[in-house]
């Protein structure tokens, strides 16, 4: 039983990172029906920038939390600048083009960003300086570390903050209006370009924080880390129903848990015919199964209405 709880803790930690990244996909999709494939790379850049800052500050003797916070504070504006740049350079000119065109330019931007990271931070695995000691806490035989608690708490706080913005502010109202119908929202006096840009900025800020979380959780970063993470977060968004904010949160956590349980138990279920290296397969099998029965995702009823 304690093993099961441990896998749940692993899964929820991983899942809350997925959820934060998935929110970025789903927000952008919700507002301009574009799958921003470069989003995973924004996470990567967030991790890398934070790494550089933390490495530079680590020997300074500051309190560890301050150093990580400083890293995050630098990573967020850098990622926001990239997010805004993406929207201006690659997506806005194509807003009225056929839907495939911005998709292709998204994939292109993802490759460009990845190789930019390769040029700046090299091909090597980068070890995050381990300045925060991980303190284990015991819960009924399972162990949760302070880093895991921090990741889950930060994710929940960010999701709550986002929900507040979207459902309780004028900006949020404008975003939802734009999502429902850009043209009409524009006629009602909503500055469409501004709202879309703000959406990209928020998504990029979330990605930056997710990057810092992933980097400090595993203690290692690599220029290709964004692609698989992005793909999984995108799947999480689809699982929850793309375009739907609570759906992305649910999908993210669910995917993380399924993955952890899959790696933990798939061998036992199949008499070791499938090993733990099939953990990704297991997660995607669940995704496919859900989509077969609910093509709009778990919470994605509204998507079907849109044309």
């Amino acid at each position, binding site marked *: 039983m304690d093993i099961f709880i441990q*896998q749940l803790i692993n899964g929820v930690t991983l899942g809350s990172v997925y959820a934060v990244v998935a929110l970025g996909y789903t927000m952008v999709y919700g507002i301009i029906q574009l799958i921003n494939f470069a989003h995973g790379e924004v996470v990567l850049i967030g991790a890398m920038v934070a790494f550089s800052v933390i490495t530079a500050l680590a020997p300074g003797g500051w309190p560890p939390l301050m150093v990580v916070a400083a890293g995050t504070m630098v990573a967020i504006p850098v990622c926001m600048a990239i997010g805004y740049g993406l929207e201006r350079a690659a997506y806005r000119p194509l807003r009225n083009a056929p839907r495939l065109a911005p998709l292709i330019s998204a994939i292109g931007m993802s490759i460009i960003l990845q190789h930019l990271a390769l040029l700046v931070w090299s*091909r*090597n695995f980068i*070890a995050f300086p381990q300045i925060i000691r991980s303190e284990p806490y015991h819960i009924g035989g399972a162990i949760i570390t302070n880093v895991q608690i921090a990741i889950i708490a930060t994710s929940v706080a960010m999701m709550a903050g986002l929900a507040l913005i979207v459902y309780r502010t004028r900006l949020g109202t404008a975003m939802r209006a734009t999502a429902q119908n850009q043209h009409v929202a524009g006629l009602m006096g909503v500055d469409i370009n501004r709202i879309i840009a703000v959406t990209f900025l928020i998504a990029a800020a979330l990605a930056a924080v997710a990057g810092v979380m992933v980097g400090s959780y595993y*203690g290692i970063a690599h220029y*290709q880390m964004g692609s698989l993470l992005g793909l999984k977060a995108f799947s999480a968004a689809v699982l929850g129903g793309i375009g739907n904010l609570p759906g992305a949160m649910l999908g993210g956590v669910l995917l993380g848990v399924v993955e952890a349980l899959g790696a933990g138990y798939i061998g036992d279920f199949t008499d*070791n015919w499938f090993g*733990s290296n099939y953990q990704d397969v297991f997660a995607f099998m669940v995704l496919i199964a859900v989509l077969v029965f609910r093509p709009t995702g778990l919470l994605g009823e509204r998507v079907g209405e849109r044309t």
Partner: protein
Amino acid sequence: MKQSKLVLTLVAAAVGLIGCGEEKKPEPPKVAAPPPPSIEIKIGSVAPLTGGIAHLGKDNENGVLLALDEANAGKIKIDGKDAKFVIMSEDDQADPKVGKTVAQKLADAKVAGVVGHLNSGTSIPASEVYNGAGIPVISGSATNPKLTEQGFKVQFRVVGRDDQQGPAIASYLAINNKPKVVAIVDDATAYGEGLANEVEKTLKAAKINVLPREKGTDKTVDWKAVLTKIKGRKPDAVFYGGMDATAGPLLKQGRELGIKAVFAFGDGACDGDKMKELAGEAAEGLMCSTAGIPAAAADSKFLAAFKKKFNSDPKIYSPFTYDAANLLIEAMKKANSADPAKYLPELAKMDYKGATGRIMFDEKGDRKDPEITTSVMKGGKLEPVAIFKAGQTVSYEVFLKAAAAAPAEAPKPAAEVAKDAAKTAAEPAKDAAKK
């Protein structure tokens, strides 16, 4: 109009290029007469110089650089001409596909010999290319048995094989830690899986319960789910077959999850500094093997020269790539030719005293009776604790004493002084290795 002009320019440029290429080639023989005749001998060196294990690749390259530097300083004459050795260093990114491409590149450049590659996964496909081109290739670090089992006459290696390394670390683990249950994880590469299989065989032969294999990839950094599963089975030891870029996170996360078992690794994760960087305090107590003598036990002249040139100590396999490059040069001297076809037979029957001891090749191209070292991380430093040679484990002190007592003839003495306990426990290991 514009286009046709462009085409014309391109054609002109191409003609110019071809012209250049033709002019260059015949140069050496033509102009060779007036100054003392010299030949340029290209030696290839292949290792991942970028990526997760670039630090190991650089170490391997340094060994070759040092050997060539010394050879050039030694004013070697081959076929009456002053030989100038030049390194052609290639980066295979630890990727089998890239490995084959750079092998082809070296073959096209007509290198006289190659030292490399670092990984088994890249060495095996590349060996086919070298065999086709007839270029001798000596690996100073690839340990998968298959490399020399393909029947290629050009393939050699100066380190041990995984069917020696696996039994070595496994029998040390069995004797020293007496585990009842062992979990084995690998990274699904030729090297990691091969080594893990050998370890499993040895442990099973010693009647130790081995859990079903867990796997990741050579890029996996999230081991939590796998480790949690392993934790539930309460193993006394965990062995991981893979490189340090993934082994570091594995070790760190294992300790975070509260796994108390001893963690053992192969030579891919036996760079003490890197493991400390990646795993932090969790690195303390880890056990790992290398398929040769410890770098620090190499010839003192080599160690001094290495330190002087690179201002750092050799990591793991640079003494071996150094020897590999020297073997190529030595064979060329003996055959008085840098032509692979002519010096290859000399290389095969070489009996050479290198920085890592006496080197002779068996009929497959493997080093005869290589040493395997097991080390343990103590107080932030990897300390050699045992040497495995010819099926026997001896403690490191005994090995050093024996080596000091009989410096000239390295091959046998260590084995004879083996402790009785070590002997008996190593028996099953030997059997397993034979199978």
